[in-house]
């Protein structure tokens, strides 16, 4: 339960965190392209450093342009605070590193973005943090994977690229029973389609690079602190020392006691932004703010095009299979309707008849859709994960993540649906030719 604004989301995206400044009356959020901020005097500087006064010190930690984006994201997700980062991956790393130390453990959904799987399964392991991967809808398996040293549960709202829909309320209940925060990467759903905090999640991660930015021009990430997890309950066996124990580099501050609901975001700001320095630049924050302003208009069009394209592909004889949570064949269709009533995003995947070579022919014949490693652009994007984003995963991990070798991922844009279909028709014809030759052989 969290409520951070009385405005509707469309209004939050345009107004929250900034009113025209008193000096110049700038209507648009200004870009504060500065590294640092002058102290009024020595005592003012000291007070800022000791959290006796709010304000900006150095743009690695906070920046006024970035803060507007943070406050809008917090309000949109119904959180108590937000820390923006240089990328979605840095948001994930920062969150994991802020809650876990060497010897700790994470339970993660198996169906997640390839780089996140690598971060959890390889990189963090090097620092003594182990992860157990479990099918996101195997709730008993998730319960069984929880250990004494587990510090968080992790999943994506809609898995990338398998498109499994996570049952956030059920996972939150598992977390609550085990006194574990549920950290959710909600990049694929965006705040327009789903608010995981209202469904029980405790921390929400976004790659702002994707639909929120929308124009494919800026990398950025966000960590939204739900403020709805009781970090310091003394009656629980599981404790969270990074949030609740005195923090020596900051006069022994106890973030939980000092800041309560916003303890995690304050801790992330004080330690991770200072030490890791994965800062979002004010210029990028400005571009991302432009995207956020129109997100509520773009997402319905993304969803409409994705659902229509999925149905159209399903009927095409060159297509072997299609995957989108809106389709009757999707195992989580009912769950998607319940948790994402306005649409389950604009990523779909499919395989063409003729396997890997036919798929490659499809990709190379496209003229409108772009073959690249990104999603969430307003333009339609396509990718073959098996040879790119998930290429570092072995066959077993690929299978566990729900990725077949022939899978083509489509991030459906907001172009005219007629033009997207025309482009895909060209690709499917090329795929059919290759498949026919292969069959003849």
């Amino acid at each position: 339960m969290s409520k951070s604004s009385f405005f509707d989301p469309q209004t939050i995206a345009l107004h929250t965190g900034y009113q025209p400044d008193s000096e110049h009356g700038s209507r648009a959020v200004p870009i504060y392209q500065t590294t640092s901020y002058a102290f009024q005097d020595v005592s003012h500087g000291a007070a800022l450093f000791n959290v006796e006064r709010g304000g900006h010190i150095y743009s690695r930690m906070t920046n006024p342009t970035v803060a507007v984006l943070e406050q809008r994201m917090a309000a949109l997700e119904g959180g108590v605070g937000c820390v923006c980062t240089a990328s979605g991956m840095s948001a994930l790393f920062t969150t994991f590193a802020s809650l876990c130390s060497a010897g700790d453990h994470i339970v993660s959904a198996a169906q997640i973005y390839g780089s996140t799987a690598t971060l959890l399964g390889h990189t963090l392991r090097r620092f003594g943090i182990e992860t157990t991967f479990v099918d996101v809808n195997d709730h008993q398996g998730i319960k069984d994977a929880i250990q004494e040293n587990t510090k968080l549960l992790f999943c994506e709202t809609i898995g990338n690229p398998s498109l499994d829909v996570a049952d956030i309320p059920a996972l939150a209940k598992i977390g609550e029973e085990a006194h574990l925060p549920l950290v959710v990467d909600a990049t694929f759903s965006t705040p327009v389609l789903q608010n995981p905090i209202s469904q029980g999640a405790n921390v929400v991660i976004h790659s702002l690079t994707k639909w929120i930015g929308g124009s494919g021009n800026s990398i950025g990430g966000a960590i939204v602190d739900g403020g709805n997890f009781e970090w310091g309950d003394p009656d629980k066996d599981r404790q969270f020392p990074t949030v609740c124990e005195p923090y020596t580099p900051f006069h022994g501050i106890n973030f939980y006691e000092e800041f309560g609901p916003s303890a995690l975001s304050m801790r992330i700001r004080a330690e991770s932004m200072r030490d890791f320095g994965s800062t979002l630049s004010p210029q990028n924050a400005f571009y991302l703010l432009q995207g956020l302003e129109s997100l509520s208009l773009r997402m319905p069009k993304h969803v409409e095009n994705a659902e229509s394209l999925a149905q159209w592909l399903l009927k095409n004889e060159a297509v072997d299979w299609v995957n989108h949570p809106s389709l009757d064949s999707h195992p989580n269709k009912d769950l998607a309707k319940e948790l994402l009533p306005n649409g389950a995003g604009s990523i779909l995947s499919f395989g063409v008849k003729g396997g890997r070579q036919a798929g490659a022919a499809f990709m190379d014949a496209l003229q409108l859709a772009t073959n690249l490693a990104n999603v969430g652009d307003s333009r339609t994007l396509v990718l073959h994960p098996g040879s790119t984003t998930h290429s570092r995963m072995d066959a077993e991990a690929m299978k566990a993540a729900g990725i077949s070798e022939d899978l083509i991922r489509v991030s459906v844009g907001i172009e005219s649906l007629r033009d997207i279909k025309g482009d895909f028709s060209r690709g499917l014809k090329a795929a059919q030719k290759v498949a026919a030759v292969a069959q003849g052989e």
Partner: protein
Amino acid sequence: MKLTLNNENIYVATGGQEFDNSLPTVVFLHGSGLDHRSWALQTRWFAFHGYSVIAPDFPGHSLSKGKALDSIEDMADWLWQLLDKMDVKVCSLVGHSQGGLVALEAAATHPDRVRSISLIGCAAAIPVNEHLLAIAESDQPAAVDAMLTWGFGEAYQFGRSHVPGQAPMGIGWQIMCNNPLHADLSACQKYSNGENAAQKITSPAQLILAENDRMTPIKMGRGLTAQLQNVSSHIELDKVGHMIPIEAPEKCLSELQAFITNI
């Protein structure tokens, strides 16, 4: 710091420094449904500038266990029990809203132990709307909605935050939804000794009021000023609502500094 008082575990924030009763003590008292975090910035300044700070969570609030106290008089009694336990002989009292009523009552019962009193967003009485009182009992989230809507001024309704990246409305929501709001509002509603208490207070007094305060309108705060004998600081802040310590933390701190450090 954690203490036991009346066989209940309670929490008292000390501004990030060890409590030392040899230093002059400043006591910060939170408003209805809130807790010590209302004073996060102000308590740290005093604690790091030669004062000892006590900012308790009243019983049943946030980190303090126990049953919520149901009258302002009981809260004042509880406060003196706490100060006795911490061996504080004399202190400066700072109270916001309901915390201001507790400060008034506490100062009136032991005027010799009060070095100064600062009343923020406060009046001699804080009558509570009957509908608000009713929904605080039947539908607390709706009551919290109403209080945050009425409590915060325009800038904060627009998502302003003095701490970059934070959402004060969301923080307020989390704290107030989990605290005994109905008991607090009932205590405010039935408290009628404010004017009498104000007249008994002899120590220097400060009032920090807000132009856009819709919970305790500024004219009611001015009325309280008229009842106090020794008002040496009366501040009225522009473009600020009822949540003064959160909405205008720097101005609030500056005024507290100027008043308390010069007594």
